[in-house]
């Protein structure tokens, strides 16, 4: 019987500070056993995993690397609780565990042939990065229509994956709408304003073939919903990724539910239609 609580052993291969305030770091992990990597690499963009530090605990984090990137997995982690604080103090070469992939993913089969609008805010951009890399992969790009990305953070220095963002800006197979809440940087070339406002201004109007994927802090989600509705998106066309406190990640420990749905196993990805049928306990 396979034990779903045992993490795959991994070694920290690289640690990069991701934002100017150093509250986020991106960790690159390499699996100690090749077979484990093979099993894990079946993940799809949108799934998460439990980062597991023996003696400290586990935390559920969205997978930031993309299935098309081989040989490693990446997670961007915000320093906030006991486990993340410990993780931020760990060094390259330290051994820990990863348990997953867990949860469902953005509905890639359904999104084939569709236009995709990706809307993200702050540090909830990790699985969205995974998604963008996946869609931009030469093997996959032709399967999708237009790709629009609205991504905002407080300041330019708080944007995740800046190098990649600016590289995507130069491409013509993806429409980037990067924004910041405000900046003193007179060289800032992109948008200034909150994500919902930029969505209203820059995101494409809804049609039957366009779907929006939204991931961000609760306040952004709250105001993005009406913005999308104004553009004509219906409940089925708005796909969201939720987070709740989790422990087991496999639907057994019972704390992450919204109504009968378990965010860890039945989610974290839900359509707005599904979410509207459940109590809003997230």
């Amino acid at each position, binding site marked *: *019987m*396979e*034990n*779903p*609580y*045992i*993490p795959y*052993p991994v070694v920290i291969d690289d640690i990069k500070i991701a934002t100017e305030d150093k509250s986020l770091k991106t960790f690159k992990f390499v699996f*100690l056993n090749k077979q484990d990597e093979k099993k894990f690499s079946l993940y799809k963009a949108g799934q998460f995993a439990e980062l*597991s*530090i*023996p*003696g*400290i*605990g*586990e*935390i559920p984090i969205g997978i930031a690397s993309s299935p098309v990137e081989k040989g490693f997995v990446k997670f961007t982690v915000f320093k*906030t*609780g006991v486990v*993340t604080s410990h993780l931020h103090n760990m060094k390259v070469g*330290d*051994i*820990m*565990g990863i348990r997953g992939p867990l949860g469902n993913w953005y509905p890639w089969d359904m999104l084939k042939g569709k236009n995709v609008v990706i809307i993200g805010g702050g540090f909830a951009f990790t699985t969205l990065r995974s998604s963008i890399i996946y869609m931009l992969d030469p093997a996959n790009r032709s399967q999708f229509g237009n790709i629009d990305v609205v991504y905002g953070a407080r300041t330019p220095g708080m944007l995740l994956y800046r190098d990649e963002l600016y590289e995507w800006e130069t491409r013509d197979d993806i429409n980037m709408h990067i924004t910041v809440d405000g900046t003193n940087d007179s060289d800032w070339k992109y948008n200034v304003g909150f994500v919902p406002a930029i969505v209203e201004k820059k995101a494409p109007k809804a049609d039957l073939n366009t779907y929006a994927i939204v991931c961000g802090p*609760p306040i952004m989600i709250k105001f993005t919903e009406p913005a999308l509705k104004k553009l004509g998106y219906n409940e089925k066309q708005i796909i969201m990724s939720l*987070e*709740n*406190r989790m*422990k*087991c990640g*496999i*639907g*057994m*420990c*019972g*704390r*992450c*539910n*919204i*109504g*009968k749905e378990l965010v860890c*196993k039945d989610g974290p990805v839900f359509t707005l239609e599904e979410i509207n*049928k*459940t*109590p809003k*306990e*997230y």
Partner: protein
Amino acid sequence: MKVIKINKKDWENGINQSKKEYQLFGPVKEKDNYIFKKLQLDEYPDMEHKDTLVSPKSILFPQTEKILQTNLDESIDDHHIMKQVKKDYSKRAVISIKPYDAKAIQILNLNFDTDEYKDPYWCEAYKATTFIGLAVNNPSVFDFSSSTNTGPFAEQGLDVLLIDCSKEYLAKVLTDKGQAFLDVAGFNQETDNKKAIEIINNMKKKAENAISSQISTQNLKDKNTLDLYEAPFWDDIAFSCINCGTCSFVCPTCWCFDIQDETKGNLSYRIRNWDTCMSPLFTLHASGHNPRGEKTMRVRQRFMHKLKYFLDKYDNGIMCVGCGRCVKLCPVNIDIRKVCNLMNSHEPDTDN
């Protein structure tokens, strides 16, 4: 279906016999309370016992259980690599478990043994266990199990059902596992099946009639989740709640748990503990945000989970077996029977 007759004079001898192959668990009286525990060589299950305070779920799902272990000593080869804690899963039998508690084990099984994931600690323990039930001839005043898909003589989840007929036990053999246990115990006196079953059915009817309290659940399925969630009665129900975990910890069907790491020297264990949705900590995000920050929300969650979410998710009845432990032990008398009936008869205010 076979029925075996066990003379009460032979009972202790049979228990002694079975201890040679099985670890036995049963109810015993300690400090005026009945509890389920592992029986020592000179201990026998109390066959007259009233409800144990805590349900026997702890035999398969202990309140604290080590699940993984790791050595943190960097000088050894496999340091920081987490491994399953080795455990003894030899044959065991639970004697004198009440039918509703056995039904509760079936409900827990739905959570721990799923198509996608199997909890190895539960599944191994479940596989190793034989359930020898004892029919309830005189239901307590708190018992409402006849309206929760089980009852004083229910057989679901049991391998053998014992019926106490004053001088003897009649043992209804329900599974091969049950037969194997009776063989080891040396209980093999066959009896006139037809007659025995008639006796049992009469006793069953009598016991069922003795249950005075019922709940109505027939409308729950068709109720809209959000209507129930927004029903006006939750504040009233929750007012007296002190947010302790008594109801969930004594409940035979509450399965929620917490995972913690604890370290001693270089040895680190990952441990799981029972948890309760009554605790604000249960859902508190690291950011400080709490989706169920208010007491009322937590009380509502417990009842909605048991009586609506579970029903909708598994289509297998409600997540309550009617044992009455929470009704009896809640310090402020929040009564699931009352809440269930309120939910079952709730009609949303159509004006809004």
